[in-house]
């Protein structure tokens, strides 16, 4: 794919008041594609993820992963002079992104209407767990809290036991991307009308959006269908789920027209037309029998990967349940940059998930660094805000700006 001279978002400037995962994922989509992202970090320790997942040289790999290419401004927001610096930045940016608890921006005098006074066409993207409005808005929130309220956790795990949850931040990351989409939609609107706007994006709404069938099945059947978790098999198609093989697990999706391919792979072509097992409804009714049939067939193979080869040969949609270690070494994931290697100046080399969309008109991702705490204080205060070196020194002396090599 061809390399243009400029990055996709060069010239776009974002004031980033986010911490943790959902907010930083939103601004990450822009910084990795070349936008100028000024990350304001709370005084004195900065983003709380600087304290989490510290594995090498006291540098948090978590922070590095989510903040590549951003500029760090570490400033005391409880000091009016510190807050003023941030307000002075507003007229110089296109977009403000924040994920404070709802109400905090207003308490700092930075609600949407305040920002609009500072810059008429400003775009404010507010990311939160449960939304800016509604009875739950003020609750402290994390991914799993929103997941619970969205009915998502109830759909994960063994139906006869307490639910479990995916051990990764699916909701946070999806919400960050939803936020990034909304920011671009607002820029599209601004380009046409000259108007800015306020965006309200929440993990709850994003998770709920992912119920592809449960909500309409429940409400459309007037409550007759009560969606619930079913462990490792789908509840409206069959067979579709996780199956045991020797030495590992395989996800097999051979419902509808894929069933005949699985029957061919198992050398049981007669089952494709079987009266009981020939359609999804029948297979759902006899799910235990179908699982037993497939899992005993899988036992014929010495290991997971030889069973996978057979399934692939017959075009059955299937995939091995890889561990994280296996994903890092997988040729497909490496070739696509799904797995991306970072060489951090403090923490050294390690792997992170790459940026998912691949753009033909955007060069291979540049070698970005994550900033150390307050690394860009000087550049932002003197170059962007045009303050003198004396003022910079004074802000440092007064403890309003802070720098630390972490």
């Amino acid at each position, binding site marked *: 794919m061809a390399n243009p001279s400029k990055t996709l978002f060069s010239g776009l400037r974002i004031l980033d008041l986010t911490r943790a995962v959902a907010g930083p994922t939103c601004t990450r989509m822009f910084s990795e594609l070349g936008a100028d992202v000024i990350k304001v970090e709370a005084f004195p320790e900065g983003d709380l993820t600087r304290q989490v997942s510290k594995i090498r040289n006291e540098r948090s790999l978590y922070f590095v992963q989510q903040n590549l290419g951003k500029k760090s401004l570490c400033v005391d927001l409880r000091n009016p002079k510190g807050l003023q610096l941030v307000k002075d930045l507003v007229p110089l940016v296109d977009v403000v992104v924040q994920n404070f608890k709802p109400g905090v921006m207003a308490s700092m005098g930075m609600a949407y209407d305040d920002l609009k006074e500072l810059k008429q066409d400003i775009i404010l993207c507010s990311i939160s767990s449960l939304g800016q409005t509604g009875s739950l808005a003020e609750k402290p929130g994390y991914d799993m809290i929103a997941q619970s309220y969205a009915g998502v956790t109830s759909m994960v795990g063994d139906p006869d036991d307490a639910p479990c949850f995916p051990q990764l*931040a699916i909701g946070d*990351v999806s919400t960050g991307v939803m936020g990034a989409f909304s920011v671009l939609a607002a820029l599209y609107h601004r380009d046409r009308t000259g108007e800015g706007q306020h965006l309200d994006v929440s993990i709850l709404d994003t998770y709920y959006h992912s119920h592809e069938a449960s909500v309409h099945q429940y409400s459309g059947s007037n409550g007759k269908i009560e969606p619930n978790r079913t462990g490792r098999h789908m509840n*409206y198609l069959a067979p579709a789920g996780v199956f045991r093989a020797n030495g590992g697990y395989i996800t097999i999706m051979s419902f509808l027209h894929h069933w005949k391919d699985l029957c061919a792979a198992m050398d049981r072509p007669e089952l494709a037309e079987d009266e009981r097992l020939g359609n999804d409804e029948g297979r759902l009714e006899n799910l235990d029998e179908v699982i037993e049939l497939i899992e005993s067939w899988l036992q014929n193979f010495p290991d997971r990967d030889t069973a996978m080869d057979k399934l692939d040969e017959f075009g059955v949609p299937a995939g091995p349940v890889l561990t994280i270690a296996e994903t890092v070494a997988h040729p497909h994931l490496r070739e696509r940059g799904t797995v991306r290697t970072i060489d951090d100046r403090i923490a050294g080399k390690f792997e992170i998930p790459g940026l998912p969309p691949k753009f033909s008109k955007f060069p291979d991702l540049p070698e970005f660094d994550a900033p150390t705490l307050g690394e860009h204080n000087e550049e932002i205060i003197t170059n962007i805000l045009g303050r003198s070196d004396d003022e910079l020194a004074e802000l440092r002396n007064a403890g309003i700006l802070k720098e630390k090599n972490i």
Partner: protein
Amino acid sequence: MTGATEPLFEGLKILDFTRALAGPTCTRMFAEMGADVIKVESAPNGDLTRQMSKIRNDRSLYYIQQNLGKQSLCVNLRDPRGIALMKELVPHMDVVVENFKPGRMASMGLDYEALKELKEDIILCSISAMGQTGPLATKPGYDYIAQAYTGVTSMIGDPNDAPSIPLLGIGDVATGVHGAFAVLAAIYHRERTGRGQHLDVALADVYYHCHEVNVHQYTGSNGEIKPTRGGRHMSYVCPAGVFRANGGDIMIMAFLHHFKDLCAAMDRPELVTKEGWTTDQERLARLDEVVALVETWLQTFPSHWDAIAKMEEHGVPVAPILTVEDTITHPHLLHRGTIRTINDRLAGEFGIPGMPIKFSEFPEDLPLEADTLGQHNAHIITEVLNHSEEELAQLRADGILNEGEF
């Protein structure tokens, strides 16, 4: 929030070749905000989801949910005359979105280079399970297959048993939103440079993007940390997970500085400073003990609702684990339009997940309907492409166009 006069994407034209879930979610983001989306459905039966989740009057609620506001053009893509119609449409479009198996667009003469010949600045967004490139690109793919290949499934469920799968299209929907982000980023780029581009968005890349710590923990520790599923408790902060209480399970996130709030709620302030209990790492080392302590305390409440109220009083991040049924009537979800009521002319009234983003400069939800199969055939052929009524009749008679009341 105030309403603007016209929908945000008014005038934007998208040719939509997508089926199932990930692709239709991408174009749904545009259709629900006023873009002109022409959904091309393969004759004779159209999108396969028209056959699924048929609950009322033979109309698929699944199809309706994902395809509000789109125009259905049902055409035979195996006939050269059908393909010719597609090529005629391309110059009228800003964006083409497709989620065929990689290679299928090229086999129809509709790959990016071919589309570029038809319209120099066209944007093509290709959505797939495993991506357009790499050794796994042409595998048949579904959400759970990509989930298995990206180490995500391995992170869900009881560590001593086979993994579970979440019973909702989290990966598909997140991929659709990544695609929508990519399309807008490409439009942003086109408006500044005049150039189109090809976008490659894959479920595998999107799922991988959601590993907020697993990938860097494994590679950054040189393989010493081997992330795996932890059932209903998080693996790197503690306490954080699903706890059993009378009458229901509760999600409690009382790690880091929240632990002191939980101790206060339990009236066990001494635990905050007790040796071996003060950090998340120490508490993780005695997870069983921590879980037993919290669950024993939860038993002192007659119902989980009382326990939740007690913890909320002390500011502990906590949530009830709602079922899908519970979400439908929840005042917060209703207030935000997280749950949205649709009144379909064939299927009647039911609830679906709403648009996750709230725009201050965008009117309330548009009163959109989902098309019946080929409903816009006549409009697109005669009005958009300017073919005569005779030609339309001929295309119908030859089975190149199809229509159906479902």
